[in-house]
Structures are given as C-alpha cells and as structure tokens.
C-alpha cells in the first residue's frame, strides 16, 4: 500500500513538470517584427504604389492560389495605405514613376502529419487484422493499426517596401523595409488583430516618414 501511494504521488508530480501557457493567452495579440535597411533614406521618397483590396498569397498547400480578395484584403491593404499616407507618402499610379513599391501578402504554411496507433482489440481470423503465429513469439491477435491524420496551417502577414529606383547586381529591387506579423490563422479575431499589427508595424518604425 505504501509503495502504491508513493508511486502514485511520484506520477502525479511528474505529470505536472512541464507547464505551458494556455493557447488563448498566447495568441491574444500578433507578434510584429520589422526589419529596416539602415542605408535607406526614407525622407528622400515621396510616392508609392500599392495594390488596394487585394493581397498576395504564398502557400505550400496550393501554389496556384496566389491572391486574396474580400473584406480581409480590403481592411489590411487600406490600413497600410492609411499609415503610409500619415507618414507623408502619396499613392500614385504605376505610370507616375513611384519611388516605392509596397507588397502586402500572406505566407501560409500548411503542415500535415500522421500518427499511427494500434487498437489493442483482438482481430479475428478472416476479418481485417494481423495474426502473429506463436512461432514469431507473439501470441494472439492484433487489430489493424489506425492512422490519424492531422493538419494545421499557420500564416504570416508580410508587408514589404521596395525602392523602385534601386536594383541590385541580380537586377532585383532593393527591399528597404519589411514587417512580419503572425500568426494570422490562429488569432481570435484575424481582421482586427491584423489591422492592429499593421498599425504596430509603423508605430515601431518611426523613421518611416517623408
């Protein structure tokens, strides 16, 4: 009896040894990370080009699905415009030779994984199931393994600002500022939290002004 109680107490203790935060607490706000090219002079730019009401999409689950439209795209892209306007830049058309290009897109990571479990229920000869003869060292029947498939998606909202008048040696446009905001999919309110994250991106980048 003493031994059983002792082991029970040990087990209960070990079960609690790696506490983790609750998901709802973890995802109440998005993480916002911005990077800047310190050589860029943001006061030298005046105009930008931005696709409104449409976001780009990069996904490993469906490479052909490349655009997002609708309310989410409208709210996010127009918040980006609002913030750039507040910073003193002007939205112009492509034909007006803009200084900056602004790309807003979602990067989706779709993961699938499987787990295999054995039911433990006996199978029967003639029915689906494995039978291990005793000469294999196994006695009895084992059911088919059941395979459970799980999937989840995560997504990061990205804003990239390019200097349209500078290209590198590979003839690529120079990225002068970038913001990563995540996770979008698990957020309790993706619309509101994405707009807040866009605001935060500009708040933590005070150098981004005309």
């Amino acid at each position, binding site marked *: 009896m003493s031994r059983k109680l002792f082991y029970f107490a040990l087990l209960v203790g070990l079960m609690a040894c790696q506490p983790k935060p609750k998901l709802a607490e973890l995802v109440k706000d998005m*993480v916002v990370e911005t990077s800047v090219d310190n050589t860029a002079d943001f006061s030298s730019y005046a105009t930008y080009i931005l696709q409104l009401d449409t976001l780009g999409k990069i996904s490993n689950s469906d490479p052909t699905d490349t655009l997002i439209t609708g309310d989410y795209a409208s709210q996010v892209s127009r918040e980006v415009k609002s913030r750039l306007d507040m910073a003193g830049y002007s939205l112009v058309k492509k034909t007006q030779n803009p200084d900056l290009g602004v790309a807003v897109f979602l990067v989706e990571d779709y993961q699938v994984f499987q787990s295999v479990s054995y039911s433990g229920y006996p199978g029967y000869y003639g029915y689906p199931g494995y039978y291990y003869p005793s000469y294999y060292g196994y006695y009895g029947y084992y059911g088919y393994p059941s395979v459970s498939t799980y999937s989840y998606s995560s997504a990061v909202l990205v804003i990239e600002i390019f200097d349209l008048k500078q290209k590198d040696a590979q003839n690529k446009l120079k990225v002068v500022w970038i913001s990563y905001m995540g996770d979008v999919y698990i957020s309790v309110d993706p619309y509101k939290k994405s707009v807040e994250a866009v605001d935060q991106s500009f708040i933590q980048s005070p150098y981004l002004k005309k």
Partner: protein
Amino acid sequence: MKRVFLLVLVVGTETGLAQSYDKLFSIGWDNNIPLSNTSYVKKNSSRGMRASIRQFMNEQFVMGGDFSWAAYEDYSPRQTYPTSGGALTTDFFKYVYSYGLTLSGGYYFRPGEKIRPYAGLGLGASYNDFAMYYNVYSADDKKWGVLLRPEAGVLIRFTEHGSWGALAAVHYDYASTKSTDAGYSNFSNVGIQLGIVVIDW
C-alpha cells in the same frame, strides 16, 4: 528485582530497535525562489517535486540519491524590443524547466528519536530548459551542468513503529547551467521542501 531489571532492559532495547531504520524513501513538494538572473524569471515556483532515497550507513550517516524537478514561469507583457535590424513587439511567456539528479550524503542527529534534524549535501547533474513562448512561436535553450545542493531539515516519524513520516527541509541549489540566450551564467535557487517519508517499506 532482577526480573524487573531484565524487563526494563528488554523493553528499552526493543524501543530503541523500533526507532532505528535502514532506508528512507521520500517524495515532496518543493517551493523554490530563483536567485540568478531574475530579469528572466523572478517569481517563486510552487511547481516542484523531489523524490529521494537514503540508506543509513550507521545510526547517523546516510548516503542516497535525489531526483528533482521545478518549473519556474514568468510573464513579460507586450512591449517593443529593439533588434539588430529593426524591432520586435510581443509578449513573452518565459519558463525554466529544471531537473536534477544527485548523489547525496547526510548526517542525522538524535539517533533513535522520532524527530531527527539533519544536514546534507548533494552533488550531481542538472538539466535546464530555458523556454520562451510567444504567440505560436517558441524558442528554447537546453543545457546540462553540475548541481551542488546543501540542505538542512528535519525528519519526523509519525508513530514509534509506523512506516510513515514527514520531512521539512530548506536547500540551496547551485547549477552551472549556462544559457547565453536567456542570460544565465548559472542557475541558483533556494527552496523549501515538505514531503512524506516511507521508512523501510
């Protein structure tokens, strides 16, 4: 008179034998206060446990081993941190998962008594996992080190012949686990342990 003397001698000897024992097994709740780098975690940890075994080498000296764990946690509210290339805004849930395995020795005072104060020292290995969770992201730094643990406490046997008892102890842990990511050159803490003891099961 001679019979009375013999009776006293026998009863006295039996009582003395009843109060001696060879082994102790204990399991207890461990409440710890972190001492090093309190900018990472500074809150007391009430999530901790220690399981111990002790073998009496004689009436007073013991040798044995301990397995312990403790989980420290703290929270940094959402704020903006400068980074090398920009800035990061998030809140952090910070944890230190601490595990120890030691060889331990000790000295128990007042042999034959129901209440026995003791002092001991443990030396072994520590394994600390310095983990941070933020949104769906996480980062951790897992480190091994040497663990040194002096302690003092008291063992109380509930009844003269029973196999159950209790212990209370205070200990200081010094672990050489170093984490550059979490800003630790070592990990140290003081702890108070309250436990149950099984005697010679």
